[in-house]
């Protein structure tokens, strides 16, 4: 009898252990989010958000919520310099944090009524916050409204699809890319929605300039859309799927694909001016550092394309994988390596020299 009972419990225990070890209902795990102002960098890395002083890489404060939040989105800044960041934990909470306040007064507002993870960075325009959630809804807040929680909620716009990227605006409309292949165009005055199917998942934020909106898709297309009427101006086939959003600068479009091809395209007609094979998948968006175009690869390489050059130069290779879009503050470039054994955050100068690296105590 004892043997039978023991065997039964061992069997049931094995199932429990096996399924639990296989994940259970695990908190989300993905690469960190990053933002910076003139004084500090803010790294959203799982259970904690770290504020790190820009001048020397020292920790200023660490924030963890009591509701089991996990943070991976890039924090956004409100008009008064506070941080907005949503949780990719099962609490689905969106927080506003005051970086200047003491730890016990850090949270100045919380919204708990979304139904899925916050993986997109909200877009802040004056007092208005446009926050896309993975539940397919765009939550619009007016931070000047009195009250807490949902009392600041101005509208909820049902868009559909998982919304993982920060929206962009031309001042009249909001453009929200969705994983379900759709680009949602939201009229900012009426919240009327127009949707365009682009044939592949849209994981990165679009870029907008001079009446055209640019984005890449999992269908390996680089697409330009006329914002006036939503029609496609041109489409360029890429060699592989595109994850990150593009960068527009000086009449050229810059973006990379998952096979490591980096493209420079003429925004006027979609002509590929040059392409370059990097050492690994390009998931993060390129950024502008002074006049240089900087991009990173999954293999940890940092490349810089100088004005007038056609081939990027490799600046530095950091330990870990670079999926997070770097952030530039003046000449300082911040990168957040994922699964790095040496640092969570690395600051470099424009030439790729490491200024400091940050690892939490």
């Amino acid at each position: 009898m004892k043997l039978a009972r023991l065997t039964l419990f061992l069997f049931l225990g094995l199932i429990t252990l096996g399924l639990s070890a296989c994940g259970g209902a695990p908190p989300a795990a993905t690469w960190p989010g990053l933002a910076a102002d003139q004084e500090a960098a803010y790294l959203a890395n799982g259970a904690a958000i770290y504020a790190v002083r820009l001048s020397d890489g020292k920790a200023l404060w660490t924030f963890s919520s009591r509701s089991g939040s996990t943070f991976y989105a890039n924090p956004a800044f409100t008009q008064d310099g506070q941080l907005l960041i949503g949780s990719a934990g099962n609490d689905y909470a969106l927080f506003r944090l005051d970086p200047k306040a003491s730890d016990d007064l850090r949270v100045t507002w919380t919204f708990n009524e979304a139904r899925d993870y916050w993986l997109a960075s909200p877009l802040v325009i004056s007092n208005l916050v446009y926050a896309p959630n993975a539940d397919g809804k765009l939550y619009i807040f007016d931070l000047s409204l009195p009250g807490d929680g949902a009392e600041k909620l101005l509208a909820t716009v049902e868009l559909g699809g998982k919304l993982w990227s920060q929206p962009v605006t031309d001042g009249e409309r909001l453009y929200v890319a969705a994983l379900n292949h759709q680009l949602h165009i939201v009229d900012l005055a009426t919240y009327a929605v127009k949707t365009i199917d682009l044939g592949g998942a849209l994981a990165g934020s679009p870029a907008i300039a001079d009446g055209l909106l640019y984005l890449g898709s999992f269908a390996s297309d680089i697409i330009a859309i006329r914002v006036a009427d939503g029609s496609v101006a041109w489409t360029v086939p890429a060699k592989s799927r595109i994850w990150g959003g593009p960068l527009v600068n000086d009449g050229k479009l810059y973006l990379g694909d998952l096979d490591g091809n980096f493209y420079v395209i003429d925004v006027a007609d979609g002509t590929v001016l040059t392409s370059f094979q990097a050492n690994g998948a390009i998931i993060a968006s390129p950024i502008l550092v002074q006049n240089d175009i900087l991009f990173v690869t999954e293999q940890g390489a940092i490349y810089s394309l100088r004005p007038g050059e056609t081939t990027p130069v490799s600046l530095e290779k950091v330990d870990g994988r670079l999926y997070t879009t770097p952030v530039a503050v003046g000449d300082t470039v911040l990168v957040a390596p994922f699964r790095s054994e040496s640092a969570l955050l690395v600051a470099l100068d424009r030439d790729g020299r490491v200024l400091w690296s940050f690892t939490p105590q």
Partner: protein
Amino acid sequence: MSPWDLFVSVFVNTLLWIYSLLSDIPGAFGLAIILFTILIRIVTWPLNASQLKSAKAMQELQNDKEWLAIQKKYAKDREKLAQEQLRIYKERGINPFSSCLPMLIQLPIIFALYQSIMRSLADTPLALLELTRSIGFFLDVGALIPLDSRFLWMDLGRPEGIPLPFHISWLPNGFPTLAIIVALTTYLQTKLTTPPTANPSDQSAMMAGMMNIYLPLLLGWFAMTFPSGLAVYFITTNLLGIIQYAMMGRIHWRALLPGGARKAATSKKH
């Protein structure tokens, strides 16, 4: 890629291939899980047959004269009874736990199926990136991703629950309909497919009795806590199990009645 990842990747690609065939139908991912479960049931048929064979041997033993004689003779000496039972098992080449072995072999399949469901749903950027890399050349990633995880009233990537008008802390997802169906179908399956025994104090009968209670509770708890895609798998596999046994004429309907198992065994004995 580790051997385990490779094993799970085969599951992911099969599941997605089925999904790609159904992707125009609403609830395609739920249907894909159901069809995939049927496929797994067919593939693991030899294991189930072996389980059934062992169970049948155990059932025949329960009605054997020598077996019944030692039960009577050593009714008050449990140690001696156990020794004699072991002797008979050895003599007849029966392993009392061999009916559990096929279930143990199926565990990696359950784990792989769970992981393939979770990986396919890819609810974080990293998970999606890994998914795109594990999809075979024969599938169109651009068209396939993201999967539509809605099925009936459920999001298959989240634990199921029908919202309640009030909050219960231990039911964070609402009323667990699917968990109750999982527990019920598991109970029915174990009850209907466990061979009846004339002697309820017998080791294997006791073990089966405990299994009838603990397994439905355990799987019900899984269904309540884990993504509902797994619960859809549990329900499908339970129902298929019942249908399979019924088709083979091995369902013990009387076991559902109070004391029915004993009556069935006694009537079989006479």
